């Protein structure tokens, strides 16, 4: 498996030329590490992954400036397929398994970038070892599985391409806590087997527990970053995720400042 740090440098991304989504974001995912990115909805987390995996054009987005490298190999400007080939595979948010395909076909779809049958067989073995449930359900349509099983399939499908770096977008989203815990265990396991992981997660506690380093994105820029245990200890994070923010309170008389809107008389 390819090695090297996934390095994002000064990345700026915009949608439709007018909407800037990322502004000079830099971060590293050292080989063999788990790096987490936290942030609110719309902070730019998913955009970051899209920029790495080359899927911005699906959303009329484009990299305006900055680079992404895996080791010394530049990834910016590559097609999604080329990025997969380079060893970086993304598990999309919301799993997005191919619901009308069987579990086995979903796994095959993940291996379409691979070179040899032998490699595919080896990958499959590894995936089924990680997720025995996928072997039991091999012939079933993926759409009929539970959310947790779908998440396992989504991760397994990505692993079929034998990635050096796995990009995980909200893997525990909408999952029951027990299931979330299981997914977390699997992520740990995958990482132990040598795959670096860039983890995007709203569940801050879980993300910080899993990762060695974490970055907090806010409005398209990195607002905070540091070793995960340090961040986990900070009040900052707790407040952020419980809604106590550093923004000033709304003054009740606020409306007196703006124009008044009369009721519409019809």
């Amino acid at each position, binding site marked *: 498996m390819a090695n090297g740090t996934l390095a994002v440098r000064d990345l700026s991304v915009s949608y439709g030329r007018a909407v800037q989504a990322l502004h000079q974001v830099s971060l590293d995912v050292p080989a063999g590490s788990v790096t987490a990115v936290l942030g609110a909805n*719309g902070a730019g987390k*998913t955009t970051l992954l899209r920029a790495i995996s080359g899927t911005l054009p*699906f959303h009329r987005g484009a990299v305006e400036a900055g680079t992404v490298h895996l080791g010394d190999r530049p990834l910016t400007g590559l097609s999604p397929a080329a990025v997969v080939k380079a060893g970086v595979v993304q598990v999309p948010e919301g799993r997005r398994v191919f619901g009308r395909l069987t579990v086995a076909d979903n796994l095959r779809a993940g291996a379409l970038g691979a070179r040899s049958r032998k490699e595919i067989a080896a990958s499959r073995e590894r995936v089924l070892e990680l997720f025995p449930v996928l072997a039991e359900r091999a012939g079933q349509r993926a759409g009929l599985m539970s959310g947790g099983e779908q998440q396992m399939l989504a991760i397994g499908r990505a692993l079929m391409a034998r990635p050096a770096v796995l990009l995980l977008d909200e893997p525990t989203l909408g999952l029951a806590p027990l299931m979330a815990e299981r997914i977390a265990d699997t992520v740990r396991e995958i990482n132990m087997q040598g795959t670096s992981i860039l983890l995007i997660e709203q569940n801050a506690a879980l993300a910080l527990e899993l990762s060695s380093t974490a970055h907090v994105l806010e409005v398209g820029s990195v607002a905070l970053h540091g070793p995960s245990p340090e961040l986990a200890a900070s009040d900052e994070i707790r407040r952020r995720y419980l809604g106590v923010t550093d923004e000033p309170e709304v003054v009740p008389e606020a409306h007196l400042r703006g124009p008044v809107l009369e009721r519409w008389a019809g």
Partner: protein
Amino acid sequence: MSETLRRPAFWALAGGTALLLALPFYLDAFWLQTGLFAISAAIGAIGLNLLTGATGQLSMGHAFFLAVGAYGYVYLASDDGAHVSGLGVPTPLAFVGAVVLAGVAGGLFSPIAGRLRGTYLGIASLALIFVGQHLLMNVEGVTGGFNGRDVPPLELFGLRFDDSPDLVVFNIPLGALERLWFLAVALLIPAAWIARGIVRGRPGRAMNTIRDHEVAASVMGVPVARYRAGVFVLSSMYAGAAGALLALVFRRTVPEYFGMFLSLDYLAMIVIGGLGTAAGAIAGAVFVSVLPQLLTRFGGELPLVSAPGTGGVSPAEAARILYGAAVVAVVLFLPGGLVGLWTRLRLRITARRRPPAPLTRLDNKEQPA
């Protein structure tokens, strides 16, 4: 009023109308005829553009509604004959009736027009062409069957839109074509004006939103299915007017004319001219109607085009290839069509005259898909 006189749009409008009114005094029959086809096509294309351009609904059945308009006029205006029947309604009323009939026909299709969207409707409406041709051929009492029917000339306030009685103005004889020209212009201008009013008004906003974001439209209170059906009816009425006018120009309706290629021509018109606006429809209609005539007339002087019957690419074939290619080229290189090109040119000119507006500050944000 003086402010009005300074507006270039006013002068353009007045000049354009003047030109349209003066043309019959100069053009020979061939160009008048071509022009009349172009004007009728423009009326039909404006209607289709309301449907396809403004509302995002594809229709391949436009030729059917043209046929309803054409035959509707003939049926209403003709007297009962030996083989064919008619209602003998005064001709101006028959013209209005034809437009209404086309609308009714569109309304009968509304269970499908309201429920299907976009290209699905396109294929479904293809059926109208085939069903329509079948009816035109078989309902002989109304349509005259394969032979078609004579079209009674329109008579408006004592003026007959026909070659006789003679009418000479400025020493120029105004025959049927010249007279019809004025009628056509008198129909085109309100047709475009009404379409513009609709697109820019309340219905237009609803139509555009159905095209851009159907759910948003419905949540804002737009009854989507009813609107889709309504626009379909409206576009059918435009087609009906175009069809009735065409019938007057032809002076005879024949079923062959209202086939699939006619529908395709109309789609080509609105794409080439520019989707969504009346001006685009008119530009496209002129392009598609006049191009083959230009090539037929001057084809001999063009390279690669050879006279009919001598082998090689004939003018008619060259015209078809050219306008097929124009459809592709416009979509690939000229989004907005001919009218879009004009707008951009105009923007470039005004931009040179005025200092550039300050750019809005780019606030950030991720745009979810």
